[in-house]
């Protein structure tokens, strides 16, 4: 039996979800320009499933996020321009990647940012790949 990779130990701590912030926006200064792409993801357990990232909560529970317009569509999230309110991504799934695959995913995100000028999340990349994939791609 293959050995399971160790999971984030915070998941086993039964930590309650973060309390609300009363829609306070974090103060941010001129140095926001130095912010790099987010890599480490929020971990939590939701509906009994181990989840990671912003998808840890359903869309309706994303408090304090900016709702803005992107390409004529309403989108949700700070720099997360991929979640469309009209087409919610609600299925939560945990995914194990090999380090090389994780690196490639990160490379794709960076390359997308360079070419398009907008960030793309790993979630959105996976969604697009699934949409474009056919059975032949698996052989």
């Amino acid at each position, binding site marked *: 039996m293959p050995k399971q990779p160790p999971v984030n130990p*915070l998941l086993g701590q039964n930590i309650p*979800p*973060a309390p609300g912030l009363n829609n306070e926006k*974090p103060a941010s*200064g001129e*140095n926001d320009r130095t912010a790099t792409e*987010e890599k480490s993801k*929020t971990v939590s357990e939701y509906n009994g499933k181990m989840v990671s990232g912003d998808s*840890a909560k359903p869309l309706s529970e994303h408090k304090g996020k900016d709702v803005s317009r992107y390409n004529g569509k309403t989108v949700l999230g700070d720099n997360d321009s991929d979640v469309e309110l009209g087409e919610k991504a609600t299925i939560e799934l945990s995914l194990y990647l090999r380090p090389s695959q994780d690196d490639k995913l990160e490379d794709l995100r960076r390359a997308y940012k360079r070419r398009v000028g907008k960030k793309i999340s790993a979630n959105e990349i996976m969604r697009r790949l699934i949409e474009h994939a056919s059975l032949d791609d698996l052989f």
Partner: protein
Amino acid sequence: MPIYCLTSIKGGVTKTTTTVNIAHGLAQTGRRVLVIDADHQCNATLALLGGAQEAKAGTFYEVMMDRRPVSEVIQRTKFENLDIVPGSMWLSNANTTLASAFGRETILQKALENVSGYHYILIDTPPNTELITVNCWVASDHLVVPLTPSWFAMFGIRILEIQLADIQKQTGRTYSIFGVVIALDDHTSKSQTRMEQIREYFGAKVFTSVIPKNVKVEMATDEAEAIYNYAPGSTGANAYAQLVSEFIQRSEGGA
């Protein structure tokens, strides 16, 4: 928005490591966290940003020396929910300049007034009792004291208590210790004895979770990664995860 100051007179008791790992833990559980690196060694900055600038602009230096609001020097890190006010190496000489400044003990407190949007603010302090450290105490709501199970560290506590009593007289408010973190336990009988002494002295303030000496913790800090992702199966990651849980329970339990 409680402000926690991780402080100890003794160096090398994992003030920075504990600050960074609690911050990562809180952030990974969905809490928005701001770390203020008040130590001129900038180790928290190195651990969260992966590097430190030699410039004074946009750092804690400007907060203390130019009375710039904290909100103007906050930087986002690559970690979700985790922001930082970077430290500055130039603060090593700041205490002399600050000595003659008006309202010198409350500079940070005032600079924090318009900061909002965080569940927690954690301040990493230098290992001394000089003006910058005093500013951190005055600006904070709670003190967290990391300790190693050693005689030197325990002696440092006595100095801290004397200094806090002095500041208490000057400012008219109490500076109670929110929690004591025992770190760098090497599982020797000597450590065990010291830990028992620490628990006897501080009672329930000592967190149940004890952070063991674990090389993975240091490696994660060196690589500017969160221990929970860098080495999730390590004893260090597990101990810090338990500490974060206890920290949240103690902090938010009555909320």
